[in-house]
């Protein structure tokens, strides 16, 4: 087969398509977005009728994938690490239902928080759900694991978690393809109660999940991705997980690595291989990207007290992504850094684009709020989060998708009135709508600013589910029509916008203010421009 130059994300997408995937479900989120976009751009996917539309959020995506699995077909669901929080309910329970068609759950972690609010490690979720985890060390393994992951899922009868981290997700390398497999024919589960998690059935399913931990661990022991490389010097043994294996090898190209190495890329942890290392070696160094997941396990289950080195004893940094220099330092290898960064070099933080509608919306909001004390604006996840930085310094929170609406409500409940939320159109349909319903039910004195740019901008301009239906959604949820105010955020309209915001902020009930103008980054997207015109927006 041919060799392709692919991002880690793209390798997962290609592997899944070649492995017989019938549908991909996702909400965009860095560093996972390119998986779905690759399938969306694929001619093959179009010809084969592979489902590849964006979902409203990660939870709906996970559930749709589970439905496809129920129907006997192979489904993949992709998200960034915090997306798995949103989808945690169906994810944990999908391990209890088990699968029919193979199901792959891809979660891309973002250590160093390049584009995220935390650096949580998805392996804990995999462990919590008691399902196998695959953690590729390079682009080829990312392809191979997605390709073979469906079969693993079908054989073990549970979803399989594929964990990426930013560096692999967004790094390109050569990938060799395998023969393309056809999609499953589909067919109902043999037991039509398999997916009915009434306690009476769930207890049986849970028992089955517990029992199948044995074959899952056996699969890890037999996995081609877990390799025990013998050494000469057993004073130290090394466990290198996922991409950390590369950083280890990078440091030992010019000199031999004398210690035994366990390359680890499939979980549950293969206890036999690990015990072998703990027995044979005086000390063990664990190199892993993310939290000290393996390290903490090792401290728990070993029979003899082999000292464990890693992130907990400071051999490796506790936070941020790994790099070859960190790993070299753990071996006492001097990293010869180049020159220091000269002092005159200034930080260059990201900023909203010139001409962005959010800018004018914030200018108006800041003016409208100038008569009140500071600290009453709750915001959300998106480009407008950059409104926290100068010159705007307009927002006081950014926690998770949709939290602006509900935090504003809670603050209003506590007596902080007026209380304002700033959220984007796509984030609103992701997780803001239910919060708005809460506000309506209590007629909370909040103003929800939905800064509508017709797209999911921060991740690169994906479709917004809100397009053309924002007012109807708000009205449907019970916001009074006269308190849904729409305007075009431009410099020229500043006074009018400020006046509208002032009025709605002063209103002691639920109001929705919608500054509406297309994201300038999407102006080249002819289909969207056309659609916006059609809708008369």
């Amino acid at each position, binding site marked *: 087969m041919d060799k392709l*130059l692919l*991002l880690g994300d793209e390798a997962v997408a290609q592997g899944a398509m070649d492995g017989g995937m019938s549908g991909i479900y996702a909400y965009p989120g*860095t*560093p996972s*977005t*390119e998986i779905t976009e690759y399938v969306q751009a694929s001619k093959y996917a179009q010809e084969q009728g592979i489902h590849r539309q964006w979902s409203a959020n990660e939870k709906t995506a996970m559930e749709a994938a589970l439905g496809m699995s129920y129907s006997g077909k192979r489904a993949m669901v992709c998200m960034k690490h915090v997306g798995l929080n949103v989808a945690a309910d169906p994810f944990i329970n999908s391990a209890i239902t088990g699968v029919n068609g193979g199901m792959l759950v891809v979660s891309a972690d973002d250590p160093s928080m*390049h*584009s995220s609010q935390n650096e949580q490690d998805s392996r804990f979720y995999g462990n919590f759900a008691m399902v196998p985890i695959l953690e590729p060390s390079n682009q080829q393994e990312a392809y191979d694991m997605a390709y073979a992951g469906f079969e693993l899922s079908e054989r073990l009868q549970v979803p399989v978690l594929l964990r990426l981290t930013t*560096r*692999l997700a*967004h*790094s*390109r*390398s*050569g990938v060799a393809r395998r023969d393309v497999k056809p999609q499953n024919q589909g067919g109902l589960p043999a037991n039509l109660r398999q997916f009915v998690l009434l306690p009476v059935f769930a207890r049986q399913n849970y028992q089955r999940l517990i029992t199948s931990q044995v074959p899952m661990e056996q699969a890890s022991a037999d996995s081609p991705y877990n390799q025990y490389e013998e050494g000469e010097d057993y004073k130290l043994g090394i466990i290198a997980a996922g*991409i950390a*294996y*590369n*950083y280890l*090898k*990078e*440091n030992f*190209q010019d000199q031999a690595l004398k210690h035994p190495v366990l390359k680890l890329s499939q979980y549950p942890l293969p206890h036999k291989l690990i015990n072998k290392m703990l027995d044979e070696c005086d000390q063990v160094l664990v190199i892993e990207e993310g939290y000290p997941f393996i390290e903490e396990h090792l401290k728990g289950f070993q029979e003899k007290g082999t000292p464990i080195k890693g992130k907990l004893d400071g051999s490796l940094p506790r936070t941020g992504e790994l*790099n*070859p*220099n960190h790993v*070299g330092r753990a071996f006492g290898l001097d*990293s*010869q*850094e*180049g*020159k*220091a*960064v*000269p002092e*005159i*070099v*200034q*930080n*260059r*933080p*990201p*900023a*909203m*684009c010139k001409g962005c509608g959010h800018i004018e919306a914030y200018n108006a909001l800041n003016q409208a709020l100038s008569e009140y004390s500071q600290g009453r604006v709750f915001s959300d996840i998106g*480009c407008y989060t*950059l409104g926290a930085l100068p010159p705007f310094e307009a927002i006081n929170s950014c926690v998770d998708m949709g939290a602006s609406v509900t935090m504003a409500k809670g603050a209003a409940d506590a007596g902080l009135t007026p209380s304002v939320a700033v959220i984007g159109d796509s984030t609103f349909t992701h997780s803001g709508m239910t919060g708005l319903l809460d506000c309506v039910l209590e007629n909370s004195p909040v103003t929800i600013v939905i800064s509508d740019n017709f797209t999911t901008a*921060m*991740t*690169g301009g994906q479709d917004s589910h809100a397009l053309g239906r924002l007012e109807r959604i708000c009205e449907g949820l019970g916001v009074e029509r006269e308190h849904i105010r729409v305007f075009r955020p431009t410099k020229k309209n500043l006074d009018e916008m400020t006046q509208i915001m002032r009025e709605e902020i002063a209103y002691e009930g639920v109001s929705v203010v919608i500054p509406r103008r297309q994201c300038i980054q999407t102006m080249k997207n002819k289909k969207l421009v056309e659609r916006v015109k059609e809708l008369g927006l």
Partner: protein
Amino acid sequence: MKTDIVLAGVGGQGILSIAATIGMAALENDLYLKQAEVHGMSQRGGAVQSHMRLSDQPIYSDLIPKGSADIILSVEPMESLRYLPFLSPKGWLVTNTKTYRNINNYPDEQKLLEEIENCGQYIALNANDIASNMGSRRSSNMVMLGAASPFFQVPFESFKEGIRKIFARKGDKVVNVNLEALEAGRDFAEKNR
């Protein structure tokens, strides 16, 4: 043989088009390649970088270890200095001198140039001017790639082939403009190294 390159610039300046051309040139030569890109938030006018590694041997790390880059190739002068810890003592700093000012505290231009001149082996050129003079403002990134090309262990012809492949869809005119830009950058580097 290996060439490790840190590509630097500001989100929106299009450093990935340089990366794509280098990637194509690597494929032409059957080299192993790894290229770590930055996506997401920083693309909105923030500092962005990409680590590119070419080798005739398998490459392990997607990231270049500090102190070992053969080239820093920057399309903006202040950004070129941000990655100095990665540059090998034998490496080359190749940078555009055209500033991109989207922050209030942007440093004094003269002082920036002095810092660049302190870097030992460097090539500093105003690629925007060179490209404009040739009547193709948008090809400044290819001028920069041309200026860095002498320090790659890849034949110059492969970069040309890369450009031909990448810009083929846009027609002969665009291909030729970019080829000329590449040559112009190359000439500058050869005369000023």
